[in-house]
């Protein structure tokens, strides 16, 4: 190998305009983080596949849980039931499964075990006896009212007169939550929280540990560009999660109906993502290794998901729990997303939540800043 001893002085690239450098460093960092995410199968699984599997699973499980279906055993002849035939019978069997049995003792045993919701017998004097178990209060109520209405119907028919009062019942859509309506925003919120918290904290921990942070500090790249690239990548990931979740949930099989200003979920998701990232910044600044960061993140994300209403609605939760949930950013994403996606909520319904999320972000960033270190030493 021949070497020349003449010093070669080339123009340093610093002579180029600063603006192109910035854009280019931003593009380079964004690409690095996207590639790192897409090539990490574990991250893809936890951030996208697992929440989606939960949606598929819960969505399918709770699909039929809309109207409570009760099972009763008919012991011997019960005329009020047997008299209902044809169209009426088909209607009845939508809510009531009737099995016939002669063995009253065996039927009672099944009732006690919960295999049956009611046991019906008819006495010689026309008294209809319904015995039910109070374990499941919803089913207990259902079976009583169904059998009662059957008996009332039979009485009314026996009187031979036209009914004086009739009730017309119409279900009002969207007043109560259907499973897919809380599952979609809940599981989406959980997925976004996982992606954003991990994205921020792992980048910080692994870059510090591998001395990439130190290397960046010695390159003419401003911290704003590095943070900006990380935020941009997390936002893109969160929006991709949102798009995939909404696509799956609105399939006819799951039947989520998007209403009105559902696109408001986009700014909402963006605000929530930076809030979750700020949590990741704190854990990433505090944790010394990826393992430690992983543990701390899970300790935050899982309780936050349960208490924030990601897995079940909080309507029936005790007061103290509702209070706790008000401090969790996930709650605001979940409830506001429910509101705009399928309950006709508008801008004014989610503005306070978005503001709260941004305030939360500012507070957490201030905390992260205090803990931040360029390297381990």
């Amino acid at each position, binding site marked *: 190998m021949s070497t020349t001893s003449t010093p*070669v002085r080339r123009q340093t*690239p*610093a002579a180029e305009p600063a603006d192109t*450098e910035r854009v280019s460093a931003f593009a*380079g960092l964004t690409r*690095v983080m996207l590639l790192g995410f897409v090539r990490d199968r574990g991250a893809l699984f936890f951030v996208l596949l697992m929440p989606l599997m939960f949606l598929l699973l819960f969505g399918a499980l709770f699909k039929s849980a809309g109207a409570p279906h009760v099972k009763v055993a008919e012991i011997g002849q019960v005329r009020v039931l047997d008299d209902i035939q044809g169209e009426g019978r088909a209607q009845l069997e939508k809510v009531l499964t009737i099995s016939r049995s002669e063995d009253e003792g065996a039927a009672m045993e099944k009732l006690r075990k919960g295999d049956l919701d009611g046991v019906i017998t008819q006495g010689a004097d026309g008294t209809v006896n319904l015995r039910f178990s109070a374990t499941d209060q919803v089913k207990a109520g259902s079976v009583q009212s169904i059998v009662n209405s059957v008996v009332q119907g039979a009485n009314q028919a026996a009187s031979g007169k036209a009914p004086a009062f009739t009730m017309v019942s119409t279900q009002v859509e969207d007043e109560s939550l259907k499973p897919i309506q809380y599952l979609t925003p809940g599981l989406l919120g959980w997925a976004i929280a996982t992606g954003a918290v991990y994205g921020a904290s792992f980048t910080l921990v692994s870059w510090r540990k591998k001395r990439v942070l130190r290397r960046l500090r010695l*390159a*003419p790249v401003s911290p704003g560009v590095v943070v900006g690239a990380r935020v941009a990548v997390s936002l893109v990931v969160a929006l991709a999660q949102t798009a995939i979740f909404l696509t799956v949930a609105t399939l006819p099989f799951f039947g989520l109906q998007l209403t009105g200003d559902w696109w408001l979920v986009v700014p909402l998701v963006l605000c929530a993502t930076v809030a979750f990232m700020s949590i990741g910044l704190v854990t990433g600044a505090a944790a010394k290794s990826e393992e430690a960061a992983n543990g701390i993140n899970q300790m935050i994300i899982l309780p936050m998901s349960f208490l924030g209403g990601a897995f079940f609605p909080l309507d029936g939760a005790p007061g103290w729990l509702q209070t706790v949930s008000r401090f969790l950013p996930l709650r605001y994403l979940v409830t506001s997303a429910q509101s705009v996606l399928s309950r006709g909520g508008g801008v004014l319904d989610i503005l306070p939540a978005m503001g709260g999320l941004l305030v939360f972000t500012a507070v957490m960033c201030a905390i992260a800043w205090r803990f931040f270190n360029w390297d381990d030493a």
Partner: protein
Amino acid sequence: MTEAISADGIRKRYGDVQAVDGVSLSVASGEFYGILGPNGAGKTTTLEILEGIREPDEGRVELLGLSPWPRNSALLPRIGVQFQASAFFVKLTARETIRTFASFYGVGPKRADAMLERVGLTDSAGVQTEKMSGGQAQRLSIACAIVHDPELLFLDEPTTGLDPQARRNLWDLLRDINAEGRTVVLTTHYLDEAEVLCDRVSVMDHGKVLKTGTPAALVREIDDTVRVSVESGQLGPGRAHELFAAAGAEITGLEDDGATLSLSTRLPAPVLSVLAEQNALRGLEVRGATLEDVFLQLTGREYRA
């Protein structure tokens, strides 16, 4: 000659440990400069202070006439820093890695790829950095450090953990980089590396610079004994003593391990002539003092790599 680096009285303390205790040095433009010392001597901290990663408790540093602390973005494009091999982004290939580093300096992908070729990694461009060998990773690390054509390059123990072949390849590369007119500063705990590569070295221990000079001058200065060795069995040790005494050759040590008869002396001429008279020159080797001897004398202890 213009100064690439000048440092004056820098000190740094971590808790009870005075890691750097008043180091002053100056490196000329275009020089290949080595900071030599055992682990814990304070050389890495010194390097980090020079690079501008750490703030010294005391003292003054200037790189290319500018202060590196606090972070000086006018200076950053003019210096290159190579860390340990692991300072890469996760899950990226060699080509993606160097293109990313290039982007920080506004350097395009063409020059990035050219640097990859320069360090002989074109064939491994598609390999993820986690799967590269130690030598490949060091080469990539150096390529990333010079992708923006810096005037001043810092290397922290670049050949640690490499096999002899990879070390030699890397030495060639570093010599070429220096020959292009770049100032190179490296820390090492390999004495042979410093001897082969550096124009000047500073020997450090306990946070202080013990001595600075060209490797040859340092070695000459200690005026050590010369070691002469020949194959065993040509001259018995007893007879050798007799002959050397008769010829007036002063021997400070003599040893025959069955394979080699080796002896130390301050006056090699009479020793060599006795050996020649006895026709006992088979396998002759004459070796002067090395940096290892310099180190031993300066620090009063065996060199621990």
